[in-house]
C-alpha cells in the first residue's frame, strides 16, 4: 500500500504579537521591543495516510486541526518537519474561497478549478456536471456577487468535488448548508471514497467520523493524542473531554490510554411524556434517562456524570452524583442509574445527553456519548434556546 500523505514530525509555531505592526514607522519605533508570545499550534505531529483511506481529524477548538490541514494542503509551511503528498490534492477549507465577485459563475468555475489544479480541458468536460451539482443552471452567467450565500456555497463545493483529486482535504465546511445539501455532500464524499480516493477531514460530528472514517486522528493542544480506528480514537477523545471537564485541576491520564474499565455502562433508555406517541418533547416537559451499568469489581469511589449539549456542542448542563450529594458504593454486579429532569425549559432543537462514569479524581471509567438524543418541538412562535415564561402587558396611552 502506498502512502498518500506523510506527515513527518510537523511543528508549527505562531508568534502572537500583542500589537501587529506593519508600517515602516511602527516597525522602526517598535524595533526590538515588540513583545510576542510563541505559540506552538502543532508539535511534532507524525502520522501517515495510505492511499484510499479516509481519516477524520477530531479535537477541540484550538487544538490545531485547521493548522494541520493548512500545513498538509500547503497554505502554511510547517516551522519544522515536512509533509509529503503523493498525487493531486484539493483542499476545501472554505467553500468558494477564491471566487471573484465581479466575475460570472461560469468564469469563476474555470478560475476556481484551475486554482485547485484542474486543466481547462478537464473543466470543460465537467462543466455541465458542476453546474448541475450546484443547481445553478439559470444563474451561471450572473455575477457571483449577486449569488445568495447558499448558491455561493453550492458552487464552491461543486467545483471542489468535480476536481477529482487524489487527496481531498475538507475542513468543517459541511456543517453549513441546509440538510438536503449536506446529505448530497456526504453522498459525494462516499462516492469519492468508493473510487479509492484519499480523504482527510475535520469535523465535530462524531457520527460522521463513525460513519465513514477508517481511522481518526485526535489532536489535543497541538499534540497528537491518538491515531487509530475511528471508534477507539473517538472514545479516547471523549474520555479526554470528560476528564478535563469533570473536575478542574485534575490531571488527565498522561498517556491518553483508556482507564481500566471497572464499570461498564449499558444501553441507555429515555422516557418522556410523549414516549410511544410522538418522537419529540414539548418545551417544559420532563425527561428521564436510565442507564444500566455493571460493576466488574466492588467500587466505592464512583461518580455518574450527566451532560446535555446542543448540536453545536455547547454545554447546556452538566452535573454528577457527587455534586448532588450521592456518593456511591456498590458491590460487584449490575445496577441502574436514573437521571430525571422535572422540566426541560428548552425551545426547539436537537440535544444530546452524555453520560459517563468516573472516579473521584475525574478519571473517566466509561462513557456513552451521546447516550440518548432528543428533539424538542416548539409549538409556539417564540424563538431562541430557552423556554422562558413571559407575560407581556401593553398599557395603551391614555388620551386626554
Amino acid at each position, binding site marked *: *500500500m*502506498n502512502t498518500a500523505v506523510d506527515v513527518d514530525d510537523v511543528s508549527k509555531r*505562531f508568534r502572537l504579537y500583542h500589537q501587529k505592526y506593519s*508600517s*515602516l*514607522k511602527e516597525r522602526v519605533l517598535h524595533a526590538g521591543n515588540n513583545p510576542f508570545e510563541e505559540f506552538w499550534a502543532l508539535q511534532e505531529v507524525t502520522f501517515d495516510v495510505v492511499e*484510499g483511506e*479516509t481519516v477524520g481529524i477530531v479535537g477541540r477548538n484550538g487544538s490545531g486541526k485547521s493548522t494541520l490541514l*493548512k500545513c*498538509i*494542503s*500547503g*497554505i*502554511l*509551511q*510547517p516551522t519544522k*518537519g*515536512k*509533509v*509529503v*503528498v*503523493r*498525487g493531486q*490534492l484539493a483542499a476545501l*477549507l472554505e467553500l468558494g*474561497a*477564491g471566487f*471573484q465577485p*465581479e*466575475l460570472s459563475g461560469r*468564469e469563476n468555475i*474555470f*478560475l476556481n478549478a*484551475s*486554482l*485547485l*489544479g484542474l486543466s*481547462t480541458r478537464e473543466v470543460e468536460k465537467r462543466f455541465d456536471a458542476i453546474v448541475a451539482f450546484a443547481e445553478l443552471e439559470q444563474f451561471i452567467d450572473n455575477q457571483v456577487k449577486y449569488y445568495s450565500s447558499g448558491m455561493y456555497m453550492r458552487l464552491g463545493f461543486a467545483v471542489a468535488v468535480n476536481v477529482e483529486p*487524489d487527496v481531498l482535504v475538507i475542513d468543517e465546511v459541511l456543517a453549513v448548508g441546509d440538510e438536503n445539501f449536506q446529505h448530497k455532500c456526504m453522498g459525494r464524499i*462516499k462516492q469519492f*471514497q*468508493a*473510487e*479509492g*480516493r484519499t480523504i482527510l477531514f475535520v469535523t465535530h460530528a462524531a457520527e460522521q467520523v463513525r*460513519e*465513514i472514517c*477508517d*481511522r481518526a486522528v485526535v489532536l489535543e493542544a497541538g499534540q497528537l493524542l491518538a*491515531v*487509530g*480506528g475511528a*471508534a477507539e480514537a473517538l472514545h479516547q477523545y471523549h474520555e479526554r473531554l470528560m476528564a478535563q471537564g469533570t473536575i478542574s485541576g485534575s490531571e488527565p491520564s498522561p498517556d491518553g490510554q483508556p482507564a481500566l474499565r471497572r464499570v*461498564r455502562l*449499558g*444501553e441507555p*433508555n429515555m422516557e418522556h411524556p410523549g414516549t410511544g406517541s410522538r418522537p419529540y418533547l414539548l418545551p417544559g416537559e420532563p425527561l428521564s434517562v436510565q442507564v*444500566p451499568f455493571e460493576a466488574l469489581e466492588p467500587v466505592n469511589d464512583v461518580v455518574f456524570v450527566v451532560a446535555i449539549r446542543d448540536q453545536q456542542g455547547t454545554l447546556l448542563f452538566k452535573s454528577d452524583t457527587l455534586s448532588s450529594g450521592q456518593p456511591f458504593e456498590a458491590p460487584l454486579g*449490575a445496577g*441502574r442509574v436514573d437521571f430525571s429532569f422535572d422540566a426541560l425549559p428548552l425551545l426547539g432543537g436537537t440535544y444530546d445527553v452524555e453520560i459517563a462514569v468516573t472516579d473521584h479524581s475525574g478519571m473517566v471509567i466509561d462513557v456513552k456519548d451521546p447516550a440518548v438524543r432528543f428533539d424538542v418541538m416548539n409549538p409556539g412562535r417564540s424563538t431562541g434556546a430557552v423556554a422562558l415564561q413571559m407575560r407581556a402587558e401593553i398599557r395603551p396611552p391614555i388620551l386626554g
Partner: protein
Amino acid sequence: MTETTAEVAADTDVADSSAAGGTATPGVIDLATRGELAAARGPKTTRVVAARVNLPQRVAELWRVRELFVFLVRKEIKVKYKNSFLGFLWSMLNPALTLSVFYVIFTFFLPNGIPNFVLYMFSAVLLWNLFQTSVITGTVAVTGNAGLVRKVAFPREIMALASVGAAVVFFVFQFLVMVLFLVGFVHPPDWPVLWLAPLALLAVVAFSATMSVFLSAVNVYLRDTQHLVEVVLFAWFWALPGIYAFSGAVHNKLANHRLFGIPGTHLIWVYFADPLVAPIMTFQRLFYNVNHPISTIAPHKPILNGVLAHYSTLWYASSDLVVFAVSIVLLVGAMLVFGRLEGNFAEEL
C-alpha cells in the same frame, strides 16, 4: 429497557476491537480494494510542504500550474475594467490621453525641440507602462488576494507573475495604437533591425517580473512599500529618456562635467545601469529612428544627431541581453526572497 449484561459487554468490545486500525467500516468497501483503485489511477506527482522548498521544486510547481497563470491574467484584465462603460478600451485610451497632454506641454509650452515628439515619447511610454503597471499591480498582488492566500494552496509567486502577464496584454493593445500612429504619420519602423524589439521587450518583462515578485512579498510585511513604489516610479519615469533627448540632455551635458578627474562621458554607464534605459532606447531606435541612422560608427561614441545616440545595432542587442541576463539572475534572487517570506503569508495577512 434492557439490562442484559451480554449486550453491555458486546458494546464495549466493539469499541476495543476497532483499535487495530483499518478495520472495515460498515457500508464502505474495504480499504485494500480502495488502495488498489487508487494505485490503478496511475503515477502521481509528489509534493513536499516544508519550511524550505528548493528553487527547482518551486519552478516545477509554477510550471505545473501554468494554466492557472492564464486564468489569473484573464481575471486581472476582466476585473480591472468590469462595470466601466468603455471597458477594455481604457487600456488604449489611457496612454493616448496621457500622451496628448505631454504632447501639448512639450510642443507648445515647454518646447523640447524633438521632432515627431509623440512617436519619440510613445516608444518610451510603451515599455514604461508595461513596467509601471506590472510593478504597481504586482506589489499588491499578494496583499490584494489575501482571501485566496489564506484559504487556497498554490504557488504564490504566480499572482505577482500574473500582474506582469496582464501588463503584457495591455502592452500588446497599446502597441496596436502605436502601429496606428506609425501608419498615420507614414513613419515606417527601421525594418532591418526590427528583431531587436522582442529582445528589448523580453528584457523589460524579465525585469518587471523580478520587481513584482520581490515587492509583492515585501509588501506583505511592510505595507509602506506600495506607497513608496508610487513615488519611486514617478521619479523613475523622469530618469528615462522619454521626455528629453538622450544625446542632448544626457550625453552632451555629461561631457561638461568631471568627477574625481574622470570625464563625465566616461560615467555614462551610470545612466545605463538603469535597466529600463537600454530597452527604451532600443524601442526609440526602432520606431522613432529620425534620419534612419543605420550606424556603422563604433560603440560608445554617441554623436549628436539631434535626438538619438548613434550606437551600433550590436550595442543595442548586447545591452538588452545584459539587462535580460541580469534580470534573470535577480529574478532567481527575488524567488529565493519570496520563498523565505512566503511561509508566513497566511499568518501575516
